[in-house]
């Protein structure tokens, strides 16, 4: 792009284009759409984890004036019969849970009834007094009891990679001079986005539905409800313009969608269903995972053998998988590696992807083990990582499309002051606080999915670009506006990006850190297609200076189309539109991953995290006083929103290390701390200095934009770096998260 450009936005730091709507309360979330004649549904949840519903005493609450209906398995109409109708795009193998399908209770807090009433308050009251009789059966909810009952998953869900196994790891370990073997554990975690799941179903007079649902994928939800309820796509439009946080919890359709659509179709009126914060703990979580890491090095610190085993729960009805151990075969150079992974069914709901699924937890175990190994071998933990730097992806036996992790190490160490770190634990102190420094990092997939977009420019020079992507805080509106504006040389104010609506071209679910690559590439290609049309119109103008130019010969800059080689030869874009006489010009296109490049290269983002903790020696309290997170994730589209993604990831890592855990009382088979007061996440007072840096990483292979996605990679290594810093401060090695006070006293 030319140096005189005022329409060069990619890589800069513009503020969020939807910012004014979000800070004034004008942004509408799913449960906030004002629709006429609205009824309210309130969900009744099962108090038992396994058993049968014997009877639902609906009569009493139905006698309350204003209560419209009590939906339950006793009266739900016959719907689609086969499992495949209930399978969404993200569903793992097995039989998806069907709300209100039969009398079986499969997990605690399973929805057993939906009470619908004229007002929210009445629905809530009626739900609270609805008597339900259950026959309780013995449940199993403790993964610790399944240590010997795990099994290798079958096919797993889309994206699941069976762990790579290379040469004999035991042989490598036997030759090692230094060896470690430890178990690492973390409990279940729940996403807990601020906005609770909710749906407003607008029932139109012609029987068609507009469904405003909290989801990370409007198309995924549309295909789910059309298949279950036998609706055509035209009859079920799904919309999500703003999502109050997802973190993976909205990848699959949740039960508020099924219940609100069911109620709207049966009652033939609009219905809103919002879950409670307690019910936010009833569908999908990061699984409680037990991991064992074994590694050994030679005298020079080279890894000679590595074994990584993980076990976590799935539900009785679906086989949830995530890539927990795979990263251990590719983050460091180690030819003799044995990775194994098992799941065991329990009487809980199916786990669901939660920010960097598998990697956030797998890298925790690997990176704490690496720290332990470094100490065993008497090496600085960063130097130990450098000595085992992976020059290629050994799982795939392929070169990386780009990898600037070494540069990230250098940059992070310099910014943090790592060279001043004494090796010995308990060697730094500030008053009554022990101070410790730790390092860790990670690797994450740079993925891309097929996505489509549409672009329309009107005679006044205003461009509208649309693709049914999602905005859950990631900055989608803003980066797509930047890409579109830059591609066609327009000011950002002249561009509107539309998303989250099944009337728009299809985009993949908002997950896997792939939106920037997938939808971004589609937006770019669509704007280029529109550009070609505009060039043709420009060439029809009298005495056009662009007469013989090919598309590659021109550039769109500052509202002009001009020759790259002779920028003074230009036409004003708005003149082209005026002279053409067209009211609007439209183009659509799509983008998909390049299969050749995908085969040839390993495409991944990397990061490294340096953390400082201060531990009160008498009280055992840990404060994270400083974090430097350096990320190598290809091209950064927006420095401001990308930085916020990584800042948020650091907060998540602090949370994972020190606070977050959903605690199950196995007597009841229920998560007990199911509210924001007892499920601890950081507040403002818990957060101190966080520095984010992106290293320059050009990648011509990964996708047309050279981006790798930054929604998840920033979380990797944070919990491990803090755990390692706690060891450095106190000399105590914690291997079970979160690091509560009792583990340090």
């Amino acid at each position, binding site marked *: 792009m030319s140096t005189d450009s005022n329409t060069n936005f990619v890589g800069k730091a513009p*503020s969020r284009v939807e910012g004014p709507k979000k800070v*004034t309360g004008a942004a509408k979330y799913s449960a906030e759409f004002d629709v006429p004649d609205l009824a309210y549904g309130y969900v009744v949840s099962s108090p038992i984890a396994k058993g049968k519903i014997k009877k639902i005493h609906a009569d009493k609450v139905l006698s*309350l004036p204003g209560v419209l209906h009590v939906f339950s398995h006793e009266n739900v109409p016959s719907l689609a019969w086969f499992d495949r109708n209930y399978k969404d795009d993200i569903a793992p193998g097995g039989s998806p849970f069907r709300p209100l399908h039969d009398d079986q209770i499969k997990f605690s807090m399973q929805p057993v009834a939906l009470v619908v009433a004229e007002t929210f308050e009445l629905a809530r009251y009626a739900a609270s007094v609805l008597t*339900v009789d259950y026959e309780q059966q013995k449940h199993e909810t403790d993964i610790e009891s399944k240590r010997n009952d795990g099994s290798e998953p079958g096919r797993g869900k889309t994206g699941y990679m069976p762990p790579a196994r290379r040469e004999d790891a035991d042989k490598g370990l036997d030759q090692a001079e230094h060896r470690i073997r430890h178990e690492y554990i973390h409990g279940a975690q729940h996403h807990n986005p601020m906005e609770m799941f909710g749906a407003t179903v607008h029932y139109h007079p012609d029987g068609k539905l507009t469904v405003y649902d909290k989801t990370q994928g409007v198309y995924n939800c549309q295909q789910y409800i059309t298949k279950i309820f036998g609706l055509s796509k035209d009859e079920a439009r799904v919309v999500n313009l703003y999502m109050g946080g997802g973190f993976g919890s909205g990848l699959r359709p949740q039960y508020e969608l099924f219940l609100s659509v069911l109620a709207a179709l049966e009652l033939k009126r609009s219905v809103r269903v919002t879950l409670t914060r307690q019910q936010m703990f009833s569908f999908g979580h990061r699984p409680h995972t037990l991991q064992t890491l074994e590694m050994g090095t030679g005298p020079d610190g080279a890894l000679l053998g590595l074994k990584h085993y993980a076990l976590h729960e799935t539900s009785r009805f679906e086989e949830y998988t995530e890539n927990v151990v795979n990263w251990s075969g590719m983050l460091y150079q180690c030819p003799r590696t044995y990775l194994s992974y098992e799941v065991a069914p329990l009487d809980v709901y199916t786990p669901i992807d939660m920010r960097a699924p598998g990697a956030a937890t797998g890298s925790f175990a690997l990176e704490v083990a690496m720290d332990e190994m470094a100490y065993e071998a008497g090496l600085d933990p960063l130097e130990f990582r450098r000595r085992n730097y992976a020059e290629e992806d050994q799982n795939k036996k392929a070169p990386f499309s780009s990898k600037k992790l070494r540069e990230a190490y250098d940059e992070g160490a310099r910014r943090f002051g790592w060279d001043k770190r004494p090796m010995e634990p308990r060697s730094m102190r500030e008053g009554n606080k022990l101070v410790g420094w730790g390092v860790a990092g990670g690797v994450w997939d740079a993925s891309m999915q097929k996505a489509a977009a549409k672009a329309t420019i009107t005679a006044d020079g205003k461009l509208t670009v649309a693709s049914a992507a999602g905005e859950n805080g990631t900055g989608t509106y803003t980066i797509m506006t930047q890409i579109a504006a830059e591609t066609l040389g327009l000011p950002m104010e002249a561009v509107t990006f539309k998303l989250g609506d099944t009337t728009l071209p299809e985009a993949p679910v908002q997950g896997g850190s792939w939106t920037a690559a997938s939808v971004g590439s589609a937006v770019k290609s669509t704007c280029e297609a529109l550009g070609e049309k505009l060039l043709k119109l420009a060439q029809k103008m009298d005495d056009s200076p662009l007469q013989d130019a090919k598309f590659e010969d021109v550039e769109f800059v500052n509202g002009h189309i001009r020759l790259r080689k002779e920028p003074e030869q230009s036409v004003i874009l708005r003149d082209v539109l005026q002279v053409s006489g067209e009211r609007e010009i439209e183009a659509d296109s799509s983008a998909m991953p390049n299969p050749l490049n995908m085969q040839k290269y390993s495409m991944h983002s990397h990061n490294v995290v340096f953390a400082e903790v201060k531990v009160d020696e008498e009280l055992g309290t840990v404060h994270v006083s400083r974090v430097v997170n350096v990320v190598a994730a290809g091209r950064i589209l927006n420095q401001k929103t990308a930085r916020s993604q990584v800042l948020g*990831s650091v907060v998540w890592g602090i949370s994972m290390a020190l606070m977050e855990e959903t605690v199950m009382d196995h007597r009841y088979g229920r998560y007990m701390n199911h509210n924001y007061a007892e499920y601890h996440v950081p507040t403002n007072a818990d957060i101190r200095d966080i520095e984010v840096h992106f290293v320059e990483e050009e990648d011509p292979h990964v996708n047309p934009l050279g981006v790798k996605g930054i929604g998840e990679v920033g979380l990797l290594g944070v919990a491990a770096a803090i755990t390692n810093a706690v060891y450095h401060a106190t000399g105590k090695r914690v291997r079970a998260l979160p690091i509560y006070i009792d583990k340090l006293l």
Partner: protein
Amino acid sequence: MSTVSTPSSADGQLRPPVPTAPVTLRINGETHTLDLAPWTSLLDALREYAGLTGTKKGCDHGQCGACTVLVDGKRINSCLTLAVLQEGADITTIEGLGSEHQLHPLQQAFIDHDAFQCGYCTPGQICSAQGLINEGKAHSEDEIRELMSGNICRCGAYVGILAAVKEVVDAKTASKQ
């Protein structure tokens, strides 16, 4: 195997809820007369009856701060008060602080410092920050962090929130001197 019933079945008929009655609230300088049940929270009155959805529901239990509004200039969790109790009070919600084309200084600072991601906790954060400024207690970074800790941000935008609030607090302090 055992049988359980929830809630444990009570004898007799259910008592019908207390009927609704007109409640007059002054919200953002405007008078709203709403037909409300006595157990309707101020939060539900705003969102479901007054059409002011800028105030958010994140827990309904006073644990997250997303529903923070100003009542007579004081920040409160609107889920923890009943609408009928606020008759006669001056209620300010996010919609009353500024608009898209006339942003309040805190709203502008939140945009400038990217003090949010998903935006769902943001109205509560901003109302809370205005309450903090009204209290006049917080000046240092540590004081702001501590006194903004009733508002959870799950996206983890705390660094930006601190910077945004500090900027406005500092500007206020400077203009007083």
